[in-house]
């Protein structure tokens, strides 16, 4: 524990004892806040593991937003109507914004955005593995909006109440803005489903491809998710992976009927005993493969981010250099006045 604080160097044993006492007090205060379902703010004492868990989760979340821009950004130039083009552009732009909100929240935990970005580009950081799947057709814009964003929203709404203040606040903003993301995806699919047979087939194909990856966005089954328990104890996570997944399946089952398509899963049923939605088996082996970097688009996505960052280096440097010169100029002018 001591490593997580800036306690005095271990000099005299009495000081150590004082420090240990204060640390115990701080832990007790933290525990009390958790019990009261209060919020932790950046300058509060927090256990090192709590900080580490948050930093990992929030930065991964931010990375997911940023990498998640790519499969959709690829379709901005080809969107089949000007209205859809505007909607898609606004959506991808929102994702950049959401990444920024989340990086800011992570920065309050003491990690700079540059460091996080470097970790991402060097392949040291994770992001939602769903964005390593390709989006080859326009219908994917519908499926991503309806299913991927739908799953994300299921995950995110409870995060608005996450115990860490900056994370919760970032999520409030994200959720508000994201409300149109799922709807526009739903409407794309609906339009396709009511269109030509070819369009409808395109929509069904996209739903088939994104279904399982979307369900896996909630993470491994509860039995196999050791970190979940701790995150729930810390009021970061409010519902278990399986609870959220079940809720999501239940929503999709109804919505897909309105769209006029089907979900590629014969085993979906509502279990009266557990009051949960059950679904067919998911290929967690594939999930692990994609997560480990062996998905269809992992290399491509990271390369694109790396290239944008590196291509932008001279621009960022120029702006910083200009700012420094302006500061010097101002100081010189003040000196002259003095």
């Amino acid at each position, binding site marked *: 524990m001591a490593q997580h*604080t800036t306690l005095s160097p271990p000099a005299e044993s009495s000081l150590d004892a004082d*420090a240990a006492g204060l640390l115990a007090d701080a832990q007790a205060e933290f525990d009390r806040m958790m019990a009261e379902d209060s919020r932790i*703010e950046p300058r509060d004492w927090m256990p090192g593991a709590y900080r580490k868990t948050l930093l990992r989760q929030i930065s991964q979340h931010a990375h997911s937003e940023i990498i998640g821009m790519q499969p959709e950004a690829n379709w901005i130039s080809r969107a089949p109507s000007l209205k859809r083009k505007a909607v898609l552009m606004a959506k991808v732009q929102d994702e950049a914004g959401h990444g920024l909100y989340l990086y800011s929240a992570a920065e309050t935990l003491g990690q700079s955005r540059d460091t996080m970005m470097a970790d991402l580009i060097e392949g040291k950081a994770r992001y939602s593995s769903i964005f390593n799947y390709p989006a080859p057709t326009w219908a994917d814009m519908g499926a991503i909006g309806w299913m991927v964003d739908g799953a994300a929203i299921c995950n995110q709404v409870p995060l608005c109440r996450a115990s860490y203040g900056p994370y919760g606040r970032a999520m409030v903003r994200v959720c508000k803005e994201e409300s149109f993301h799922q709807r526009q995806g739903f409407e794309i699919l609906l339009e396709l489903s009511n269109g030509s047979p070819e369009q409808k087939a395109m929509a069904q194909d996209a739903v088939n491809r994104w279904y399982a990856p979307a369900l896996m966005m909630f993470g491994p089954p509860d039995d196999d998710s050791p970190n979940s328990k701790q995150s729930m104890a810390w009021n970061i996570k409010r519902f278990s992976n399986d609870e959220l997944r079940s809720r999501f399946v239940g929503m999709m089952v109804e919505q897909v009927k309105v769209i006029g398509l089907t979900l590629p899963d014969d085993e979906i049923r509502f279990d009266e005993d557990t009051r949960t939605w059950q679904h067919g088996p998911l290929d967690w082996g594939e999930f692990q493969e994609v997560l480990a970097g062996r998905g269809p688009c992992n290399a491509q996505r990271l390369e694109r981010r790396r290239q944008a960052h590196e291509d932008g*280096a001279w621009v*960022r440097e120029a702006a910083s250099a200009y700012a420094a010169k302006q500061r010097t100029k101002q100081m010189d002018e003040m000196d002259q006045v003095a």
Partner: protein
Amino acid sequence: MSPHGNPEVPAGAAADVIRGARQVPAGSRTPEPADPAPTGPAPVQAPGSPAAAPEPAAWDLWEVFVRSNRGLSHVHAGSLHAPDADMALRNARDLYTRRNEGVSIWVVPAEAITTSDPGTKGAFFESPQGKDYRHATYYTKSEGVKHL
């Protein structure tokens, strides 16, 4: 370092930990080294020393405050990075007012914000506790009297 600037500055700003936004002891009698509160960027880095050497051109962090309507206060909206104040203002406009959220924006360098120390909150915020005579509800005998 004395508290300065905007009294509305929130505790949850990204300024809180990084960029050397140091805590003010705020009248605390607890000696700094024995205070477990200033966690700072604990396991990752020592306060004031960035975890990894950031690229030389790394842009500064700014806190953004948005006034949503005339007559209202500016409220903390979030943070962003920008090379200077002019660009910070523009980035704030682009990032935080895409949906008509504001009619006015403040940007403040994160490092210019001084925050009270949560570790001393017992002492710092104790005084007003129990002084209920500062509130109208304390004066019960006048209850029911009109226009009072």
